């Protein structure tokens, strides 16, 4: 399992490829038959307004612990080999990747369900907060869209 909170822009597909090459494929060679991935990207619209930029605040220390707890819970519930969670903080612009969740498992059921569960748990529990920059000023995002 790896959890990373990044202050600077990151390339999710490269991060995924690197982690699979360096960790998963060596540690679990021949064992994983299913990988499920979610990438969240910043939109330029929300609640009917154009969004110019975003600041992502978090609670250093608790963020990493909560993400690790979420991944650990998924491990208890599904047969997983490995998990990777990367999340941006700081100043973001539209099209910037926000989050990467990837899981590796022997079978697709566990991979699909665990990936989605981790993402939904992250949305409701990991201490991140979005502040949007609009033409009219700043606005804190106060709720998530429905995931299910």
């Amino acid at each position, binding site marked *: 399992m790896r959890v990373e909170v990044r202050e600077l822009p990151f390339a999710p597909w490269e991060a995924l490829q690197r982690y699979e090459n360096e960790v998963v494929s060596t540690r679990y060679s021949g064992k994983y038959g299913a990988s499920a991935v979610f990438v969240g990207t910043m939109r330029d619209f929300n609640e009917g307004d154009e969004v110019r930029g975003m600041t992502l605040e978090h*609670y250093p220390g608790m963020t990493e612990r909560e993400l690790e707890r979420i991944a650990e819970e998924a491990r208890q519930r599904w047969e997983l080999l490995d998990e990777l969670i990367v*999340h941006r903080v700081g100043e973001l612009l539209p099209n910037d990747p926000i989050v990467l969740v990837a899981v590796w498992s022997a079978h697709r059921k566990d991979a699909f369900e665990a990936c989605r569960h981790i993402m939904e748990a992250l*949305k*409701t529990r*990991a201490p*991140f907060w979005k502040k949007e920059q609009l033409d009219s000023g700043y606005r804190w995002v106060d709720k998530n869209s429905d995931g299910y």
Partner: protein
Amino acid sequence: MTVKVKFFASLKEQMGCDGATVEIGEVATAADVWLAASGGKAMPANVLVAINMEYGDPNRQVCSGDEVAFFPPVTGG
């Protein structure tokens, strides 16, 4: 006892600071810590509480040296 308080996001702006160190009686809950740190304001219903970086009920007792954080609903991902 002494407890470290933290506020985040919109709550930090409303409180006008990102936290404080508060002195409080030996038997106190997270809700008591909120009252001490906020100057007696009512805690908004949607505020989340974390004690030592773990979610907790506002009625949970705190200990000296604990870090008690208050923040609005989270919106990451």
